[in-house]
């Protein structure tokens, strides 16, 4: 197990290096530059623009810039944002809690819906419940989050005036009032993200359970005279969850990405909106850092998924 982990981690290093090199090159060659706002400003003489480019190292060859970035990164220096001139790691750390809160809660919500609905639907295939659940799940993941987000805003913020649609990271309140405000503003984005995820998880849980339900050991358990409830929970669900857990782990990085749109609609100051702002401002160090973090997440969650798989199903060995 330990050697397997070590081997996987060692393999991760060259792949991350490769990813970072590709990201860096693509970004360096992408059109646009961080000083575009200056171009239309007659107060900024061309010399200043040139001096800034030089001091930010934009005129050096891409390889030199990449190696400089890499060596700084290895020493824990993530560079600074061209737009706000503060350190990139500070910027990212400011955003992480909000993203984790919104994405994390929406994942929990999604699982809370998907597990019971999926299992119940699978144990009664083609029943009315199953068909309704299937249809709703289908509708759910066909509707993009930017659409459902706007729909909720129009309904709950503008028509009914129940919830605010601008998410604020600092709420001028304390104690219970703070929790209440935090909850109120998070309801809509969490619902949007949670329902979207729930829809696809439901279908997955349903088919995973259906696969297991026909296996011999389930029949054996039933033949032993165990109650339906025990069979479903102890025997079916536990085994069906193995692929589901893997799926959830592998989905995590994608969820961070999927939250980008939702974050933009509700003005949630998370990682996703940071990435969008940075892209619009051509703020290369921030784009680089955020996308690299995403890449690391993908590698990390792949590893976690593999480990979980082995742990849940002892037949898989790490030899």
């Amino acid at each position, binding site marked *: 197990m330990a050697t397997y982990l070590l081997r996987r981690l060692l393999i991760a290093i060259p792949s991350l290096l490769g990813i970072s090199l590709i990201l860096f090159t693509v970004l360096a060659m992408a*059109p*646009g*530059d961080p*000083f*575009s*706002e*200056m*171009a*239309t*400003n*007659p*107060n*900024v*003489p*061309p*010399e*200043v*623009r040139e*001096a*800034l480019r030089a*001091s930010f190292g934009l005129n050096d060859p891409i390889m030199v810039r990449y190696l400089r970035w890499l060596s700084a990164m290895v020493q824990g220096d993530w560079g*600074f*944002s061209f*737009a*706000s*001139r*503060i350190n990139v790691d500070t*910027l990212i750390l*400011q*955003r992480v809690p909000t993203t984790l809160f919104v994405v994390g809660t929406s994942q929990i919500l999604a699982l809370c819906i998907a597990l019971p609905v999926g299992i119940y639907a699978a144990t009664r295939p083609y029943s009315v419940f199953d068909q309704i659940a299937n249809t709703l799940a289908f509708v759910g993941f066909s509707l993009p989050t930017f659409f459902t987000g706007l729909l909720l*805003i129009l309904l709950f*913020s*503008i028509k009914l*005036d129940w919830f*605010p*649609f*601008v998410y*604020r*990271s*600092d709420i*001028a309140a304390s104690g219970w009032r703070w929790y209440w405000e935090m909850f109120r503003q998070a309801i809509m984005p969490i619902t949007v993200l949670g329902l979207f995820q729930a829809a696809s998880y439901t279908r997955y849980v349903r088919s995973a359970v259906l696969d297991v339900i026909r296996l011999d050991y389930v029949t054996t358990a039933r033949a032993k005279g165990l109650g339906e409830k025990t069979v479903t929970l102890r025997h079916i669900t536990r085994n069906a969850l193995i692929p589901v857990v893997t799926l959830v782990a592998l989905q995590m990085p994608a969820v961070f990405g999927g939250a980008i749109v939702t974050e*933009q*609609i509700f*003005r949630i*100051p998370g990682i996703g*909106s*940071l990435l969008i*702002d940075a892209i*619009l*401002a*051509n703020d290369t160090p921030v784009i680089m850092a955020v996308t690299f973090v995403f890449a690391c997440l993908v590698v990390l969650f792949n590893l976690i998924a593999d480990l979980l798989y082995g742990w849940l199903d002892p037949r898989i060995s790490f030899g």
Partner: protein
Amino acid sequence: MDEHKLRELVAGVKDGAVSRRAFIQRLAAVGITAPIASQILAWNDVAMAQASLAYKPTKAGGGGPLKILLWQAPTLLNPHFASGTKDQIAGRIFFEPLAGWDKEGNLTPQLAAEVPTRANGGLSEDGKVVTWKLKQGVKWHDGKPFTADDVVFTWEYAADPATAAYTTGSYTNIKVEKVDDHTVKVIFKEATPFWADPFVGVVGQILPKHHFGEYKGAKSREAPANLKPVGTGPYKFADFKPGDILTGTRNEDYHVKNQPHFDTIEVKGGGDAVSAARAVLQTGEFDYAWNLQVEDEVLKRMETGGRGKISAVPSGDIEFIILNTTDPWTEVDGERSSIKTKHPTLSDPKVRQAFNLLIDRDSIQKFIYGRGGTATASFVNEPKQFRSQKLKYEFNVDKANKILDDAGYKRGADGIREKDGKKLKYVYQTSINAPRQKTQAIIKQACQKAGIDLELKSVTASVFFSSDVANPDTYTKLYVDIEMYTTTQPQPDPERFLNQFTSWEIANKENKWLGRNVSRYSDPAADEAYKAAQKELDPAKRAALLIKVDEIFCEANVILPLLSRTRVAASVTNLMHDHSGWDVDTWNVAAWYRS
């Protein structure tokens, strides 16, 4: 407007026969912006008018929170690094310049005790020295007194090229001397008619020497005060998350009596213009939203709820079209649209004239921009004294057809006109932005009726407005026949703005397309008038010269102005605010209040 008439008007204001407002409006009618108008008056010793917003509250504080929503979030707070309006708006809450510009273009003292005039000895006869008297008893947020040293330091800071301040253009060619603790002298190398640039408005915010002194030049990025500003402004810094939210609390020692009204201020960023308007006009979650580049129809629908209102103030921003007189499709010495080439058809003044007649400016204003702009034929529109009265626009398809017929452009089998095998087919580019694409469509339709074929092209704004040398789609490269965008006139005085009509500013390969003259068109008469205006101290003569530069380009139909843009903001009904097209929206945030 000729010089003689201007003089008469100025005399009228002096005698009291003409009101300031009337004067400024008269000048506006001829294309002179309000700030320029008021500079003309100041030069002639007519005192500046007082701030236009009547402030009602009788004590400071008690107004609760003020919530401002910017759909582009502020990312830094040092006003001298501010690359965009969003940062300038945020910085101005904490820092102040010596004087700001109100919406009529009047110079309004902020940290200065008074506006310099010739009468009070503030302006020297030779036009080279401006003496500013500073307000006494002003304290920085940390309690230290504000003095002339801070003003001198701000000049040293911004002028140092290593600091890489975005405001540096206003400080490099001057000298600033301290006379006493509350007086500074700004010395220009040459007679400078537009002296109200350093220490004024957006570029003029004064930094505390005791916080930035060690961080001048190359160390400028490291100053802790870049992110935790200590200024003299109406609100003190509380918290800042770049790209997200900025908060401040009332400055109890603010130097204006009974101000500010609000106890806290909050600037939230992010999202888009439409939903920002919605958060103010429909839900009232926020008190104020800026820069609403949204179709007026949409705004009007949101306003019907009665929760909020729209206000639009004139600015010097101009939406305009450039007709390329050089050939964008032939490469000479590694450069397209080189001045060594001539456009096969657009170099013909008749074609350009016909094209201008095909722009239905009134419809564009009515159906697309609404309160967001006013149709115009002049490049400079504000302050009014710099607007040309001579320039007129017309939409007339028949006339355009006749001109093209007479010039020998015959319709081919496909309905497109041609002459000597050269077809009137053009690529017309602009940035991606809903009103612009609609404008393109309106013009394309009219052109079809006159046998001109337009291929519409739209480039994403972050590429179009970048100075990326490697990209062929930037607006400064102009590698197409026709392009359209808005250019911002940062100061009320259009001198620096009009340098885009001079021959030495032509964007080309040598200057990496950083030159400001994107049209590449030049005329010795315009160069001459521009140079003369730079030295002309008499405001009337100077305005006339600058108007001439404008007219040369517009009459040649190389520059086709469309709309003089207004700055549109939304606010909740009971918020009394005062935003200006010549300064940032928060220039006078101390005087905002809730009625």
